[in-house]
């Protein structure tokens, strides 16, 4: 009797193990964003879009590796707008959860905090938010807009429209300072003289310009002097403002601009950190006619975009993840690039036949991985930046953009400062 009992238990246990072994195969994928703190307003939308992308892939069967279909199991962690915590959470994702890939980060400082972790543990990060370049790591795939995919096309457009004077203004941290320095060198190389570049310069001891433009801290609200300065700068006509202010400081800035009577036709302002998501909380009637430059606008009239938006809205109604807001949602470029990143990774994995980071990286660097997303075709370059379309739009009163110019398939370039220094040296400046 006892022996029979033992044998039965053993049989049941073995059967259970066998059944478990035939359960659904899943792959763990990390999502590393700030879901609380000051960046939560921007980053929670990226988490929502990633969950949407994962659900779409799972509904279509999953990722095919070998002859098995793997469903994506998201592991969502909260960086809480705390940069050292980002590094800790990255470590947790790579070393404890053993995720195959991480989609995350928004601010450049969060990316720089997690970079050593990814390099040490040889993880893979897909980074979707416009940034200043000057970085190239084999552990990061930059689906984001590099400077030459956002700032430079906008400046080219303004130069072509006859603008001669550029006032540089931004928040005081690495992204605006680096971008403005790149733009300063770019403008010099294109014949704009330093007197026509406004905002002030910081020079080092040898007189070389190390920073160009006017910078304000995060959360700054008193723009009276700066707008008076801009007004004098623009008094002679043919001037524009390059605005890299981040966060809600944009609200008092634009209110002051409107109060001073500066219209977009007199002095256009091109903002690099304002997309449809941020425009939900800025009085947009102050912004009608101002410019934005991204690799995706929600108002793109392509069939892929229409289809994408329809599926996104349908998913929002039916999903039940905690914390996802259902009403008044818009889609902007960082969200769309997060979505593209997921599909690019899926394609690379399926081509490589494995989730192993080395194998996936090899396929990504071959230059063959591309995806026809809502913004058009996006291809991963051998240096792990991405080639994509770039659009310039003007703001409409409803917080959307009207697309006025398109630059198709712009190749992302990481090292603009060195390139421009060489160009300037060749010109003798």
């Amino acid at each position, binding site marked *: 009797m006892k022996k029979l009992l033992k044998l039965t238990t053993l049989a049941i246990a073995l059967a259970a193990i066998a059944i478990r072994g035939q359960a659904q195969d899943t792959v763990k994928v990390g999502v590393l964003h700030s879901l609380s703190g000051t960046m*939560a*307003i921007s980053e929670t939308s990226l988490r929502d879009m990633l969950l949407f992308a994962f659900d779409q892939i799972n509904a279509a069967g999953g990722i095919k590796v070998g002859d098995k279909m793997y469903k994506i199991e998201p592991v969502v962690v909260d960086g809480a707008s705390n940069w050292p915590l980002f590094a800790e959470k990255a470590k947790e994702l790579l070393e404890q959860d053993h995720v195959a890939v991480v989609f995350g980060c928004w601010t450049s400082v969060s990316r720089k905090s997690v970079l050593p972790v990814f390099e040490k543990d040889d993880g893979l990060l897909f980074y979707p938010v416009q940034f200043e370049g000057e970085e190239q790591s084999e552990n990061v795939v930059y689906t984001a807009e590099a400077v030459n995919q956002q700032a430079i096309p906008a400046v080219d*457009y303004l130069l072509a*429209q*006859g603008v001669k*004077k550029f006032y540089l203004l931004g928040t*005081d941290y690495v992204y605006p300072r680096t971008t403005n320095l790149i733009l300063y060198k770019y403008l010099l190389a294109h014949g704009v003289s330093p*007197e026509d570049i406004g905002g*002030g310069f910081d020079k080092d001891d040898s007189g070389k310009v190390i920073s160009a433009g*006017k*910078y*304000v*801290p995060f*959360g*700054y*609200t*008193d723009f*009276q*002097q*700066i707008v*008076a300065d801009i*007004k*004098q700068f623009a*008094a*002679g*006509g*043919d001037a524009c403002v390059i605005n890299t202010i981040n966060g*809600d400081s944009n*609200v*008092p800035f634009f*209110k*002051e601009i*409107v*109060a*001073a*009577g500066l219209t977009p*036709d*007199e002095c*256009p302002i091109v903002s690099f950190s304002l997309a449809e998501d941020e425009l*939900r*909380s*800025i*009085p*947009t*009637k102050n912004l*009608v006619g101002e410019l934005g430059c991204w690799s995706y606008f929600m108002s793109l009239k392509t069939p892929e975009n229409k289809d994408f938006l329809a599926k996104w809205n349908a998913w929002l109604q039916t999903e039940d993840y905690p914390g996802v807001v259902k009403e008044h949602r818009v889609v902007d470029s960082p969200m769309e690039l997060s979505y593209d990143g997921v599909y690019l990774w899926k394609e690379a994995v399926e081509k490589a036949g494995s989730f192993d980071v080395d194998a996936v990286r090899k396929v990504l660097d071959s230059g063959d991985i591309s995806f026809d997303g809502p913004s058009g075709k996006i291809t991963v370059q051998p240096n792990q930046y991405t080639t994509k379309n770039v659009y310039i739009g003007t703001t*409409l009163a409803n917080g959307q953009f*009207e697309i*006025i*110019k398109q630059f198709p398939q712009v190749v992302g370039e990481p090292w603009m400062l060195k390139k421009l220094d060489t160009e300037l040296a060749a010109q003798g400046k």
Partner: protein
Amino acid sequence: MKLVSKPLFWWLGVLLCLKVDAAPAPSSGVEGTNVVRQELAQAILSNGAEQQELLDKLADTGSTLASDVLDAWTMQEVYLYVAPDGSSVPVMLESQQDAEGRSRAIRIDDGQFLKDATGKELRFGESDLNPASTDMRLRRAIQHALDMLALSDPDPDARYAAVDKLGNSQNESYILLLQGRLAKEKNAQVKKGIKEAIATLQLGDTNPAVQMAAVKQLATLNSIGSLDNLNQLAANTNNSPQLAKAIQSAIGSINDHIWWVNFYGTIFHGISLGSVLLLVALGLAITFGLMGIINMAHGEMIAVGAYTTYVIQNIFGSGFGFNITLPFSIMGKPIAFGLNLPGLNATGWFYQSYFLFAIPLSFLTAALVGLLLERTIIQFLYRRPLESLLATWGVSLALQQIFRMVFGANNVQVNSPNWLLGHYTVDDVSFDYNRIFVIGFVILIVIGTWLLLAKTRLGLLIRAVMQNRSMASCMGVRTTRVNMLTFAFGSGLAGLAGAFLSQIGNVGPSMGQTYIVDSFMTVVVGGVGNIIGTVYSALGIGTADQVLQQLTGSPVTGKIVVLVCIILFLQWKPSGLFTIRSRSLD
């Protein structure tokens, strides 16, 4: 004969003079309007040089219809209807919509409603038609035509802006046009603008005598906008030495003028920043200064006022509603409650007056919240500053979370009423209307507060309670009631500050945190216990901040220097600018 015809001739003469004085009459008669309509429709459909020619023609007509259509074109309100035969018809949509939100289309070429083959009027929703596209270059060309048309606009601001743009266009053919306009112009500001524009355009003349006269004129007018052109001219190597000297002296004189403009501008900015500081600090001066309560929730009172303004704006508009679901449930039932206020859908001047209603309501709402706070928490904490600090900090966190739940974590949009937009310019120094309004209102509030404290019975009681609470209580003063009213008054002032700050800055759940430190700083520097100290310290800190910002060129360095000076000042005078000397021990 002569006696009869003299008054007749006189009247005819008057009529003729009137006609000459009036703005260039629009193409009179139906025929003229039709020609303008045809030209407009053609301009919309063509491109390149032909389009530019048509726009130039339209600019000469002086037609208000042309102004309206061209304006609509830049605002994406001109649409292209593709007829069944493939041709494009430019149309505009009428503002009236039917039940399904569709409106009839007005053809631009003949002013009639767009009809289909059977003669039925077609109706379109906004997204059914594609707007006639414009790029920046075309918008500039249209704006140019609008500027020419605006030269005769009834609004002097529009005329000034038009004149300014023509002056910067470097197109000498406008000189005659501007000189013609100068003869008819009555407004002094616009006249100055026209003279500047003419002189700027004459800088490009080949005749050196004309150039010399233009340079001298620009120096006399102190025209800041012409600096770029003067610098460009100075770089020209074949100027005569007199011309070169005249240019340098003109540039020098304009730069001096800019220095004075910045000087007065900085003083005005300093006063306006000081008035904002005073606004946020006055309420705290009363609660902290007069009652000795460290109220860390003061910033949230400001936010209450700002959110009240937002709610009033929405009530005047399309309505306001919110819905809160608590994260826990009682007996399996989730707790949710919400509110839905219908909007008044006001338009025009009634809508623009919402701010005047918002001001007293912000005061009352914040006062009520302050009252509630005082009755429930503060009244137990009068002699315990550390506990009051901690408790009010907790309240501030709770209030911030309530704002997040009711209004959302994002900032909310509060639009300025149109009578607060714009600015007043005196000799190139511009004074924003909303800043002037804030300064004016702050003066009223300070006077009102002083009157309350110095001249009314309540003020007498407040001062008595402040000086010696127990003695006042012995004299029969109902100290609890006085405390309540004082705290409510201080909070109400914070609410007023919030209403004004919603016009200048952000409105979000954590907006209070931006102002709390500055408020305490202002009150402490001014001297705890009196209002006049707060006034002086607010104005002083505001002006010092702006002056230093102007001198150092960096917004942050200025603030740092001001803070260091405050620290040093407090070492020298720890009780602030104006101290209250009293014999009481506490």
